[in-house]
């Protein structure tokens, strides 16, 4: 991990592979979070609000 990273360039953009993976990973993670089903807890029918103690 100590040898200099490989860099990719497009025009004025110059980015290291680790940084690019980081950014792509974040975008993927965001999209997955948007679409992945979320487990819903059991509802309490007729217990819409708890009384404050």
């Amino acid at each position, binding site marked *: 991990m100590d040898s200099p990273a490989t860099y990719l360039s497009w025009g004025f953009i110059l980015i290291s592979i680790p940084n690019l993976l*980081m950014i792509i*990973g*974040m975008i993927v993670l965001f999209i997955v*979070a*948007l679409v*992945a089903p*979320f487990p*819903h807890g059991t509802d309490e029918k007729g217990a819409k609000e*708890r009384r*404050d103690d």
Partner: protein
Amino acid sequence: MTESAQEPEVDRGNWTLALRRFLERRVPLVHLLPDRQPYFVGSWVYVFGVVAIAALIWIVATGIVLVFFGPQWWHVSNIGHFVNALHFWSVQIFFIFMVLHLWGQYFAASWRDGRAPTWLVGVIVFAISIVATFTGYVAQQNFDAQWIAINAKDAMNAVGVGAFFNVLNFGQMYGLHVLFFPIAVTTLVAVHVVLVRMRGVVKPIDPPGAETSEPARRSGPQASEGPVA
């Protein structure tokens, strides 16, 4: 707890009583530690914030270990180097999930219904975290720290703060990094979380033309209203 319409003469002007009543009114335990939430909180996007806080906890914990053994320790000890690696990756995770949280809250327009202060504090946390991290990078006492400091001084000097915030001064940067900024960041994160708990999670953005729920009416000295859905 209801406030009596006429408080006894002896209680008027009592700061402690006023503060307690303020906290009981504005930040009751039932909303600081809720066990119910609106059913629409059903997306993994809601998890980003708490993961960022978890990462912050590990940043502070590993940072405390590093402080305890001194700034040279992690350069000469294998365990120290490992603890530093924990600190390094905790910071990466912190920023990843803080930014994901920012994206999520932006697309949810979470500043609606009086939540603009929450958004504002969040942006301040982001900005201060960047400066906190920066003091860490220049306090590393390695090649990276040397190079970053030599270059960052130009930005600091250009805006006139370079002598006040001397990035070439290890003692100053290290002290800010281990004391001042951890206090600043954790305090602001706590304020941010309390604001979220006080107001509750913002309701979904309604489609235009559809029936909306009643907009929240604020009672008490609640100031700024952000744009209402």
